[in-house]
């Protein structure tokens, strides 16, 4: 069952790809359990290190699965893990999107489009709130969020790098004077 690490990665990660409803954080607990307790791919301490890296690098935080893949089977392990992590959920999204596109212009499609718009808006604002909470929810974070949103409202084509760099500089200054 656990002789082939590549097969093991697929068996563990592919179902988690479809199970990651509402973002990657849903898969942390089962991924850690499988990788540490069941299959002994990494120790608990290693897993925590890899988790920290996954938060630290760009990209979805479920890339943790690819870090574990790299740890047990090198480059090929990382590649197999990427495919197992993102192919199933992308295929599902593609199927839904294809159906969506085929019915463009029909009355129910327009109704669905208009019905989804307020849900999207509500979810985005809920996402802002939960990201704010996760980030610590302090004054400085709130100020940078508002500053960045305000700057973008002022100049719509402002490059995102400027906003990210602005936030980084503000936090860096705060860290220096602390």
């Amino acid at each position, binding site marked *: 069952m656990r002789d082939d690490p590549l097969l093991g990665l697929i068996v563990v990660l592919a179902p988690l790809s*479809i199970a990651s*409803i*509402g*973002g990657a954080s849903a898969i942390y607990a089962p991924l850690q359990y499988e990788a540490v307790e069941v299959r002994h791919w990494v120790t608990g301490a290693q897993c925590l*290190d890899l988790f*920290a890296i*996954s938060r*630290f*690098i*760009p*990209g*979805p935080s479920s*890339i943790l699965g*690819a*870090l574990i893949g*790299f740890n047990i089977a090198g480059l090929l392990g*990382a590649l197999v893990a*990427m495919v197992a992590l*993102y192919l*199933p959920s*992308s295929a599902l*999204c593609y199927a839904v*999107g*294809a159906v969506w*596109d085929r019915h463009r*212009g029909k009355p*129910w*499609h327009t*109704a*669905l489009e*208009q*019905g989804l*718009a*307020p*849900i999207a*808006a*509500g*979810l*985005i*604002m809920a*996402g*802002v*709130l*939960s*990201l704010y909470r996760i980030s610590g929810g302090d004054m400085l*974070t709130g100020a940078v*969020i508002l500053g*960045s*949103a305000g700057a*973008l*409202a002022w100049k*719509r*084509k402002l490059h995102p*790098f400027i*906003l990210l760099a*602005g*936030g980084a500089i*503000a*936090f860096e200054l*705060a860290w220096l004077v602390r």
Partner: protein
Amino acid sequence: MSGEQPRVGFSALYRVFFWIGLFSFGGGLLPWIQREIVTLRGWMKDEEFLPGVALAQILPGVNSTNLAVFVGQRLRGAPGSVVAVIGMLTGPFLVMLVAAVTYQYVLGAPAIQAAMAGAAAGAIGMMLNMGVAAVRSASRGVAAILVMIAVFVAVGVMRWSLIPVVLVAIPVSVALAWPRGARDAG
């Protein structure tokens, strides 16, 4: 399909998502994708794009890769989706490989962690900006505004789980939008 616009090239599609993916810190990627695809390049209209934002969040998987699938599919079909997702994940994958080898030396430096947290806050600000715009364009009448507030309170404030909330919200919201939708489409 509208078909008035010239086809978007695969390399242009790949490049857009490559840069977004490479600098995707702390979540707020959906507004960045909107900026590149809708605001700067006009490849899609906001009305086409926003349902994708909803689907990307509702369906399982990562929001940003789901949205890449949706945008790629709309612009160039199945190959477009593949190109967009691979573009999105190339940068993170390469950085991940470098980080996996060198992390002992870099990780944990407080100066770097502060910068990362600040960049993440900047990204959340982009998300807030997008949320305000989405609220504005979705505010077609009292019913839509009530749905919006209900979804925000349920998922954001009460922290109810997403699936049951949208399973209730979608039929209600679509039923409320039905008369207008039928009229607009006709």
